[in-house]
């Protein structure tokens, strides 16, 4: 690795610089040959989609076709996507706890209670509205755009709003008073995120226990009408996605903005410099 460093870097730079125009040209050339966007005669519109459009509502009980495809026909993908979000939270937690450099202390202005009457009052009005709207988006995802993912993000944003205004929990070290956390702590957020994944996979495994395939909600003993059963189970997995996303949002914000020590999770420890 030693000697050809300089020349190697230049060659790499040239290759990289050549790769981007090549990629761009390739994409444009390929796009030009593709069927027109929105063309009703294109393979994407004629092969698989018609069944979704015609049968989704009757088969899955979800009026919103997007929800039907995401949560039911391709529910395994959505389980995977939820796991991707969970993985991002997990990675953030592991890596930021390990990152050297700055101590895990809140940046000035980011974590202390803001202490303003106006903000306090406005937050008291807004946060319940945001949280309620998040739950509405979750439940209404069957009919209108929305669902567990968007609802979870909104819910997480509400939690972040509380954190921004009222600050995280403090242990009380003389300079600062002891403050309880509003909303879940970092540990609580992690537990929420885990519970979401467990709930999703648990519903899938429950379907297996009743004789169906993994994630085949139709076999769950929740009623006689399979579409209705699927609708209920879809709501369940949307709630699970909601939990994971809201928890992960909390984990991400807390790890990034507050740090480990303040949130009461001793993840990292004192480290000596190495390099």
């Amino acid at each position, binding site marked *: 690795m030693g000697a050809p460093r300089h020349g190697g870097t230049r060659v790499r730079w040239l290759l990289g610089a050549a790769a981007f125009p090549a990629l761009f040209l390739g994409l444009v050339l*390929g796009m030009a040959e593709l069927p027109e966007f929105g063309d009703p005669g294109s393979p*994407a519109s004629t092969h698989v989609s018609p069944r979704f459009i015609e049968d989704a509502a009757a088969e899955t009980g979800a009026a919103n076709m997007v929800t039907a495809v995401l949560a*039911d026909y391709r529910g395994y993908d959505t389980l*995977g996507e939820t796991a991707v979000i969970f993985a991002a939270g*997990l990675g953030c937690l592991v*890596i930021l706890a*390990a990152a050297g450099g700055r101590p895990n202390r809140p940046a000035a202005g980011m974590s202390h209670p803001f202490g303003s009457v106006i903000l306090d009052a406005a937050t008291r009005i807004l946060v319940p509205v945001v949280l309620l709207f998040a739950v509405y988006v979750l439940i209404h995802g069957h009919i209108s755009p929305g669902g567990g993912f968007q609802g979870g993000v909104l819910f997480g944003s509400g939690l972040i709003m509380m954190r921004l205004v009222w600050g995280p929990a403090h242990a009380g070290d003389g300079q600062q008073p002891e403050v309880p956390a509003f909303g879940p702590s970092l540990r609580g957020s992690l*537990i929420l995120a885990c519970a979401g994944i467990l709930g999703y996979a648990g519903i899938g495994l429950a379907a297996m226990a009743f004789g169906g395939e993994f994630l085949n909600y139709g076999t769950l003993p929740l009623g006689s009408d399979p579409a209705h059963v699927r609708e209920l189970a879809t709501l369940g997995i949307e709630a699970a996605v909601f939990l994971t996303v809201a928890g992960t949002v909390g984990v991400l914000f807390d790890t990034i903005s507050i740090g480990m020590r303040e949130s009461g999770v001793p993840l990292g420890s004192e480290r000596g410099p190495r390099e």
Partner: protein
Amino acid sequence: MRELLPGLLVALPLVGAALVPLVAALFRRTTRVAALTLHAAIFAAALGLFWSAAAAGPIRYAVGGWPGPWGIELWFDGLSTLIALLVAGMACFASFAQTFGPDRDRTAPASTPLREGLLRGALLLLVGGLLGIVATRDVFNLFVFLEISSLAAYTLVASGGGRSTVAAFRYLLAGTAAGSLYLFGVGFLYALTGTLNMDDLAARLPSVEADAALTVAVVLIAVGLSIKAALFPLHGWLPDTYVYTPTPAAGFIAAVMAKVSAYALLRLLGEVLAGTTAGAVVLEIMIWLGVAGVVAGGVLAVAQRAVTRMLAWSSISAMGMILIGVGMGSALAITGALFHMAAHALAKGCLFFGAGGIRALEDGDGVDRWAGLGSRAPWTLAALTVAALSMIGIPPTAGFFSKYYLLSASIAAGGPAGIAAFAAIILSSLLATVYFLRVLEAAWFRTPGDAPEADSERRPPGPVLPRPLAVPVVGLAVLVLLTGIFARPFERHVLPDWESGTARISAEAP
């Protein structure tokens, strides 16, 4: 049971990935037993599927009860169950090795029960992602699980702190680019054919054969997965990642990460897209790049002084060999490629567990640190020697048979590519002899006094590796020998499925 196993195989790792951090967060106790139990259960499911697919033929499993192009299908034949078995088995060893904790090299944060739980969760998530890639029959689902495995791998790579964070960042850049290219390719394929199911795709491809967008799609998919599989000019992320990853994770990532991507290449390019003109050309190019990678990886491995870095370059050489097999596509070559995946994963996992542990405990990565280890820990070093012999390709070990298959396939393929592949594999074996004998000579025939900067009083006599690493090292070496001795049954199991699979696809094509 046959009906339950596929679902369990893909569900258990994800359940475990949430369960283990949950237990750690709730009870703040060590999660070793829970994680090991889960890994053992996953391995049992993989073993059951392997046996079931061998005894009663391939299994098609419609997740959610939706078959064909509407839902997502899983597909378990001789090839996928073999790789799934490999992944699940290596994960058991890696989970055992995780008890070793972070490398004691002062940058990694000390282990707390919660942190341990998070890392065990990340390993389970990585296993879940890899098993998903192996099992799925859906090109978009493959992308989702590629992302899961990548994110979990970045976490594990970066968990060492210090340099490992930088290595993880480079890996992240390469991996994200690779994932995006693959996704672009899948988007093109979907726009062209309207389907994401691999069987459906293979059946519908001939109707869009003439379309230039198909060529773009094939190239995008091939380049994306080749980055992940560290095919020669796209291998830039690999050496640093393998070297700086904490030992327990390195043994797993070095053993199976790139292999699973190579398996995805085999599935997509070798099976589904092989019939297209672009696919055939890309496979031909892949042989030549594989040849270049085999030679370059071997030469650069000889040039390294640090043992783990030498192992990393030797992995690039091995990936080149596997992709030569994928590129040739004959039954013999595919057997060789799959067998080399297994042989190399077992041996490389063994070597990384051993070399990483020795690096951490002897406080250095140079060859001279290995001086005299043979007399201090004969069993561990004997195991590492077996793994090294397998990497070179000495007969009773697994490495000999995989190279034998690949060489036979090269002769059978003939032509300039076959000759080049044959010569490259022979040359790489010679180079491997050079660089592995250097280490083995230091370990067995030199005393620590020979080493330039030896301070023998600092090194206590006794076992070189702690039990969490010694058990995987010895266990994997035994497996290397067993796989070599029982090579024939594997071949009989894998080949017919490959031949019937390609025959089915070419029969469905009008």
